Each structure stands twice: as C-alpha cells, then as structure tokens.
C-alpha cells in the first residue's frame, strides 16, 4: 500500500493523430505541492483535464488515492478539487449561492454545507463578498471564488490550472500564499509558465514540453542546477584566463565583456578569498564579486532545448 494521492501512468492523449501529451507518468504524495511547468501549448492543461476526468486519455490511466479514474469516476472525482484555466463560475449567482451549489454537487452532507461554505470563504478571504454577484467581482476575487469552489469539499488533491494568470502583483502574492497554505493540508498541483512562481510555492517541479516530461524532481535539484559553483568577478584590469586558473580550486574560467570574468570552481572549494587576495596583490582592480546564478529561465531553456536536439 503506497501513499500516493495521484498516480499518472503513461498518460497519452492524441488529437487527430498528433500527440498532445505522450507517455507522461508521475506520482504525488500527500502534502506536496507539484508545479507543472511548460511553455504555451506544451500539454499542461490537457494533462490536468485527464487527471480530473474531464478528458479521456487515449492511453494510460489515472489513479486518485488508489481509485482508478476510468473504472470508478465518481469516487475518484469526489477526492479532487479542480480549477480549470477558464474559471467555471455561474456569474448570475452570488458567492454564497455559487459555493452552496458547489458544495452540494460535491456531496457535502446537507448539514455541513453552511459550515463548508464559511470555511472556504474564510480561507480564500471572501468573507465580506458573500452577498455580491460573482459577475460584479473583480478578476482577483473571481479567481478566489474559483479556488474556494475547488477546496469546498476538503478534497485530497487540489488541481489549479494557471491560478495566477491575469492578476495584479498583490493578488498574485495573496494567491501564492493561499496555495502554500493549501499545500500543508492537501496535495496540490498547479500549472504555470511563470518560473519564479514555481520556486516560491512548489516542493516539486515537472517540466513538460511538447507533450513529454523533460524534468521531474524536487525543486532543490532545480535550484542547485541554477546556483551552481560559479562566481562572477568584475575587475578593471582583468588578468588572463590562465592567471585565474592558477588559483587553487578554480576549474574553469571564462572572460566576458566589460572586464567581467565567470569562474567555475570545484564542489568543495571556496576560492573567493584567494581570488580577492590575488586581485589585491596583482592590482586587478577588483570591484565586484558575487555568486553567479543562472536564471531559472536558462535552466528551463536548457532542458527544453536538450529535448529538441534529441530528434
């Protein structure tokens, strides 16, 4: 008996012969936030639709807490809260009415509906919006109603498709905080194409490109790949590359424009102090030294680019 809340096994989806998603497998454990990352049209939404039973996979299967989505869809769907990319809101209803409908359809027992609605509203900061028509709410608040709808029945898995698209920075921050909070109670899957977002809220990340999974691992792995053992040094009189390589621990050096130099050092070495001493001694005119971070974007580009070169 394993504790996976979500198991996707070799999911494949064909659209008229073209593979929108091919052979995607992954698992998710309780209390994890999984970030689903990929450029536009990579198959993120298609995968999420298959996970929630909105789309039948051409091949492969989905299991939610061990329950097969194809065999017993009702039981499996009861364990999922889903917010699609386009918010499925009935705009003619008020927030309370809408959430009540959502609770009823998700089999919350009639005695607990009021309480469930209150809790969901409180978590999403909607308390003072109860009697407003959804139509009249701002974009950010509509998004919160969408999330409230997804968590109203305390599901095991919450799946949010691009939850921060089109929101202002403050709303984005609030929603990210909310997702983080949800992550402590539920398993959460979010999809996005904003990389820093993944770093901020996710424990694990999956990068999908052209329907294929190109990276699947803990966020720390991605971060490590990103930070690396690199220093960026700025000097007024830069020395030759060979001179730099003589300093103990440095394995690689590369001269850049504007007196900058990027050096790579061995795993256990800390050459910063030696570099500064050498710079002072040889009058290199050191004015800047800092760890060199590859942006997450670069890592992302690398990963998706590698995939392309395989063909």
């Amino acid at each position, binding site marked *: 008996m394993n504790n996976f809340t979500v198991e996707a096994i070799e999911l494949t989806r064909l659209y008229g012969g073209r593979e929108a998603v091919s052979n995607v497998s992954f698992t998710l454990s309780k209390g994890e936030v999984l970030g689903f990352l990929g450029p536009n049209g990579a198959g993120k939404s*298609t995968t999420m639709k298959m996970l929630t039973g909105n789309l039948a996979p051409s091949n492969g299967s989905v299991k939610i807490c061990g329950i097969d989505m194809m065999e017993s869809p009702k039981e499996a769907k009861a364990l999922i809260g889903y917010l699609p990319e386009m918010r499925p809101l009935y705009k003619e209803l008020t927030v309370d009415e809408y959430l009540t409908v959502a609770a009823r359809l998700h*089999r919350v027992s009639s005695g607990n509906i009021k309480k469930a609605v209150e809790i969901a509203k409180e978590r999403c900061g909607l308390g003072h919006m109860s009697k407003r028509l959804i139509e009249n709410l701002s974009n950010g608040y509509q998004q919160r109603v969408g999330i409230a709808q997804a968590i109203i029945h305390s599901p095991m898995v919450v799946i949010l498709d691009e939850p921060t698209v089109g929101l202002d920075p403050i709303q984005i921050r609030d929603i990210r905080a909310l997702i983080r909070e949800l992550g402590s109670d539920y398993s959460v899957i979010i999809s996005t194409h904003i990389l820093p977002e993944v770093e901020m809220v996710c424990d694990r990340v999956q990068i999908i490109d052209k329907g294929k999974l190109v990276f699947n691992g803990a966020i720390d792995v991605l971060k490590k790949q990103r930070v690396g053992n690199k220093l960026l040094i700025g000097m007024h009189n830069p020395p030759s590359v060979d001179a730099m390589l003589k300093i103990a621990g440095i394995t690689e050096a590369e001269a850049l424009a504007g007196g900058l130099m990027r050096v790579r050092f061995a795993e256990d070495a800390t050459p910063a102090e030696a570099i500064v001493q050498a710079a002072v001694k040889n009058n290199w005119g050191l004015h800047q030294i800092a760890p060199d971070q590859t942006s997450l974007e670069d890592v992302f580009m690398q990963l998706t680019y590698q995939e392309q070169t395989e063909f």
Partner: protein
Amino acid sequence: MIINVARKELKSVFASPMGWVILSLLMFAFGTYYLNGVNDYFAVMSGAMRPAERTGVTQFVAQTVYGLASFIMLFAVPLLSMRLISEERRSQTLPFLFSAPISLTEIVLGKFVGLVAFLSILIVFIALMLSTLNIWSDIDFGFIIANSIGLWLLVASFSALGLYFSSLTQQPVVAAILTFVALFALMILDRFFAGDPSNTLASLSLMRHFQSFSSGLIDSGDIAYFVLFITTFLTLTVRRLDADRLRG
C-alpha cells in the same frame, strides 16, 4: 444528485428576471384566453338550439386554453432550453459539472428535470385556473387532468429535444432556432399526411399524440410514444456530452 443539478438550474432561471417574466407573460396569455373562453361559451351556447350542438363548459373553455398552451410552448420551450448546455459551453462552466462526482446521465437528467419542473409550474397554474370554474358550475375534472398530463408530456418532449440541440452548439440562439424548427416540423408532420392518416411518418407527429389527451382520453400508446421520445433525446444528449470527454 439529479435533484441537486435540477435545483441549480432552477436557481439560475429565477436568479435573472427571465424566469419571472416568462411565467407572468404566459400566465397573462392563458388568463386572457380563459376569460375569452368563458365569454364565448355563453355567446355560442345561447345560439346552439339542438342538444347535439351543446358542449360542456369544461371542454369548451379548457380546449381553448390547452390549444393555446400547446402552441405557445412551441415558442417558449426553445427559448428556455437553449441555454441549458450551450450557455455552459460558451462560458466554459461545463468542467465544473464534469469534475464534480456526478455522472453524465445525472447531469443531463438534472437539467431536464430542472426545466420540466419550471414548466410544470405553468401546467399546475393552468389547471388551478380552470378549476375555478367549479365555483359557478360542476366541471369535469377528469378532462382537465387528462389535458394536464398530455400537456406535461408534450412539454417534457419539447424540453428533451431542446436539451439535445442545446448540447450540439455553443450558441444559445442557434440551439433555439434548431429546436424550434425541429419541433415545428414534428408538430405539423401529420398535416402533410392528412390524406393518408395511416402513414407511419404521420404517427411521428407530436401533435397527433397530443390530440387524444386534448379530447380527455389517456391512451397508453400515446404515453409510450412520449416516453420513448424523451428517452431517445436524453440518451442522445448523454452521448453527445460523452463525446466531449472522449474527443476533447
């Protein structure tokens, strides 16, 4: 679960003025015909000398009102059924229902029950209105019950067809027009075969099966026709929605 979907539909209808306006306008039309029917009854009957020409007040008034009702529903039902699925498709709210733990059959039945429940309000009101005749005379309740059942089955068939056409398109207006044209064709089908009443195609006509009810007769053959009609279109709707899930 069917009830919960139906409740949601009813809530949507009454959340906007649409539902109330339709109810009141239709009741106004039926009320006017009822009033005219009562007035005409005295005018016509005072001229009818021979006993064979005389009909009861129930039949005279109710036939006018139910005749109008079956005709008006031809326009009203497409307008009400058009948004059931196409509107959800257009505003992308279908995933809300699809990802809830309810089956497609329950979704379709729920929407159908919701619409029929709304229209049933009208049928009950018409029956109540006609029953007020009983204050002044002794009316034939059996006739009203038979007509109510007939109208109810007719309206339910309209709704099932409307629901199906609504599931085919994203545009509510297109759904309404398609539903209206299809219903109209089915209604007047028997007119084309007036010379040959035994033709099989003629018996597909909805109006023909309503006729026995409107003369106060509850015929199990006609009930079976309506039930089959409703089942067919509800099944087609479920299959259409299932195709969404399979083909995307």
